[in-house]
């Protein structure tokens, strides 16, 4: 199945018929079954699959760090000639970090907040090689920091003084400090935005080829995998469904699940995953005032300005999707919460149908709530764990006086569930923890549909949902506009989806709108350096569109500094939406 090019010596890691099970009250859960795989020296192997497919479990079993009550029920794990499962706790301790290093998912949580970075790196050396003098320790930690492209003074800082990307690079530096044979990176960039992600992944690639170890990269993003790894292992429900080189898998996927994974990545300029329907009538509006209007809205948090003065008018006579894209910290979520009235602006006014959102009385406020709904990022937190999920649908329906009795509520709920592709009998009477993230997010969309608001604010609605479900949830949201005539503000960091769903795109950078216009122009042919930077950072699941390997030729800090100087680019208008720049 594999091409036989670089087959030098024994593989660094051999998994043979590995099975891992978790005994639970409901019976034994087979997390991984009969998985066989080799990782060779200097090769990068990606493990891709949805949450719950057993990728992390496999990685943890190699470290012998399976969470209780999980256990390896069969097969062998061979790390460069050592049988891992036969090692004692003390022998395993010595093998960790020195032979196999683990770079965890949330770097923010894996550094000790009360220690400077350097001593934390020294801890690893001392634990494996005993005490040595300070100058030697310093030399080695400096070398490690340098190799991940961090300035040497970083070592004397505390973790809270570093940015997310820097922390993740410190974690990589710690992982490679003892030159391990195998590096396991468990979604090392999942908490980072695209620009930082590209930087961190390039660092990881460069350092891995420098020390020549094997790399096991765990992730769910096909694009990131295509840019990073040599071989790809596709996992589904604990089984290895496909394994081959990236090229083989991207160009000729054999398993239907792999095909799903690849096609679920939206591409800029690629084929649309939406099937636009007949245009729906906008909901009949009693007011001639524009639906939503920002008048010089500005938001400060202390001395920091999260959102620079911004004015726009959304007419709302024809349903539209306005996308707001930007990195974390660009002010896009602040904008969302200002629109919802959760967060009063520091300056300026937000008008909904001519009414100032800040100065509404109780009745107006209820009417505003009814007409402006939201879909939030985290579908796991949106349901009260105490109630069955239908509480979240039933309650607002009654509260806004839409219900004409118990039966009407029930039929409305069922109808809404069916509209988003859920079986009402299966999901409505469950508790939230019994449903997957995708199901929950669809229920939230169903909730919005039931209330038929005039405006929906979707704040990163799919960023926490498994990749294969993203497209279908986005098309559910798109349907709200197309079939039910709801105007939508789509807040996201994902330019590819914004390209497909929206009628108008605003790119936010440090609270400023830097580029705005129709998506085909803004994202398809960006002009502002910041938009270009964002587009360049997207990991395309396409080997022709590579990031490149060098780590020196691409410096996001310099590019951002340049972007900050450039003036905003305005790329034309769409009817019904007016943006005033300035």
């Amino acid at each position, binding site marked *: 199945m594999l091409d036989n090019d670089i087959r030098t010596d024994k593989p660094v890691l051999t998994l043979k018929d590995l099975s891992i099970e978790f005994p639970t009250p409901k019976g034994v859960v087979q997390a991984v079954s009969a998985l066989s795989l080799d990782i060779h020296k200097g090769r990068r192997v990606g493990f891709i699959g949805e949450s719950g497919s057993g990728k992390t479990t496999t990685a943890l079993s190699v470290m012998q760090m399976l969470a209780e*009550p999980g256990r390896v029920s069969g097969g062998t794990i061979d790390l460069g000639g050592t049988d891992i499962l036969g090692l004692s706790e003390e022998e395993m301790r010595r093998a960790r970090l020195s032979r196999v290093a683990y770079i965890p998912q949330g770097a923010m949580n894996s550094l000790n907040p009360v220690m400077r970075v350097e001593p934390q790196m020294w801890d690893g050396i001392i634990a494996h090689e005993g005490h040595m003098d300070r100058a030697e320790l310093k030399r080695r930690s400096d070398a490690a920091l340098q190799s991940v492209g961090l300035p040497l003074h970083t070592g004397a800082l505390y973790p809270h003084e570093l940015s997310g990307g820097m922390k993740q690079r410190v974690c990589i530096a710690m992982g490679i400090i003892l030159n391990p044979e195998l590096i396991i990176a468990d979604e090392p960039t999942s908490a980072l935005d695209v620009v930082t992600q590209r930087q961190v992944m390039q660092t990881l690639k460069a350092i891995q080829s420098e020390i020549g170890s094997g790399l096991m990269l765990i992730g769910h993003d096909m694009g990131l995998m295509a840019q990073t790894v040599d071989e790809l292992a596709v996992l589904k429900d604990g089984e290895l469904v496909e394994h081959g080189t990236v090229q083989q898998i991207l160009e000729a996927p054999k398993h239907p699940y792999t095909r799903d994974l690849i096609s679920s990545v939206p591409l800029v300029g690629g084929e649309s995953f939406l099937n636009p329907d007949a245009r729906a009538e906008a909901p009949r509006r009693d007011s001639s005032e524009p639906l939503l209007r920002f008048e010089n809205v500005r938001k400060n948090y202390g001395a920091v300005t999260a959102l620079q003065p911004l004015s726009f008018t959304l007419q709302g006579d024809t349903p539209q999707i306005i996308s707001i894209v930007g990195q974390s910290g660009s002010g896009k979520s602040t904008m969302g919460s200002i629109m919802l009235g959760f967060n009063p602006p520091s300056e300026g006014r937000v008008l909904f149908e001519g009414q100032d959102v800040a100065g509404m009385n109780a009745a107006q406020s209820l009417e505003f709530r009814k007409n402006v709904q939201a879909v939030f990022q985290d579908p796991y937190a949106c349901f009260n764990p105490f109630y069955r999920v239908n509480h979240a649908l039933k309650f607002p329906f009654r509260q806004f006086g839409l219900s004409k009795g118990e039966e009407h509520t029930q039929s409305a709920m069922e109808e809404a569930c069916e509209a988003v592709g859920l079986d009402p009998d299966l999901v409505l009477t469950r508790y939230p923890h019994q449903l997957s993230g995708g199901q929950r997010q669809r229920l939230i969309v169903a909730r919005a549909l039931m209330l038929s608001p005039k405006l929906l604010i979707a704040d990163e609605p799919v960023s926490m949902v498994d990749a294969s479900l993203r497209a279908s949830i986005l098309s559910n949201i798109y349907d709200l506009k197309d079939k039910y005539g709801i105007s939508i503000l789509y807040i996201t960091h994902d330019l590819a989806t914004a390209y497909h769903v929206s009628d108008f795109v605003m790119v936010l950078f440090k609270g400023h709108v830097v580029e705005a216009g129709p998506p085909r122009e803004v994202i398809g042919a960006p002009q502002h350096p910041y938009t270009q930077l964002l587009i360049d950072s997207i990991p395309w699941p396409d080997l022709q569109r590579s990031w490149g390997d060098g780590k020196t030729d691409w410096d996001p800090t310099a590019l951002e500094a340049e972007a900050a100087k450039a003036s905003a680019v305005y790329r034309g208008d769409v009817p019904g939406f007016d943006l005033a720049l300035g």
Partner: protein
Amino acid sequence: MSNYSTDDNTAEAVSPAPLTRAEKRQARRIRRFDNPWLNPKLMWGGGLLLAIIALGIIGRLIWDLDLVFTGSSTLKLPPVGFENLRGQPGVWANPLGTDGGGRDMLALIIIGAPNTLFVGLLASLIGMSIGIFLGFSAGFLGGRTDDVIRVGADVMITIPPLLILVVFQSAFGDVTLTMMALLIAGFVWQSPTRLIRAQVLSMKQSGYVQMAQLSGASTTHIMFREMLPNLVPYLFGSFIASVTTSIVTAVGLEVLGLGPQRIPTLGRTIYEAINAGALIQNLWWWWGIPTLLLAVMFIGLLLINLGLDEVSNPRLRKLS
């Protein structure tokens, strides 16, 4: 403790292959894991407290409570099966012996033990109610209200309750049980207030509260229908902890000779025993029996608290 469940046979009948000992134990643990309320700690703790309440109720029905008055029996009789220093053997008329005033020990604990528990429960019930009210107000309203409540609770927490209560009680002279519970309640509201405030603050940011706000829910709805049900495990835990604190405070005062003068309580019995030199005269049953009952009470409360922790926090529940 882990072997009290006895359904080994059923486990064998269900599975076709005979199970090993370890597997059977595993199956039992899994069953227990499935229903968190079948927690052995919780059941033992609850059992101990119920036993004390049952002692109070059944005792009142079958024992002559007039024996609690001074001089109703012979002085300083030992429990049945023992002899005191004078060589008098215990008699069945006073199975747990009598104290230096000729009061029957059994009658004393039948009345005294539930009294002590009552003070603890009432004080923490009042304290918790104040705590829930203030904690919710501080966490939910924020701003100036929060500042006042938070600083107030923090200041109150630094004041040693016994010191103030000693002054209060000596000024009041004789107090009733309810009065004493009220006084103690003034010192057990601070930690529930802080706990609930912290929980409310974090819950206020949670997605489901935002969803409820979007649904046009009123503040009362959010507080009592969305937040409070999720606080129940914390409230239970905090309640049990404050019952313990209240009882310790109450017994502390009673042992100092403060608190109700005419009503028998466990603490007062210990105070009288110490005062009458029971230790020197080797009248161990006089102070020993109430101490033992207090110990049982505290162990019961502790077990309930540990059990509730496991119920509300599944991570503490272990399969192996």
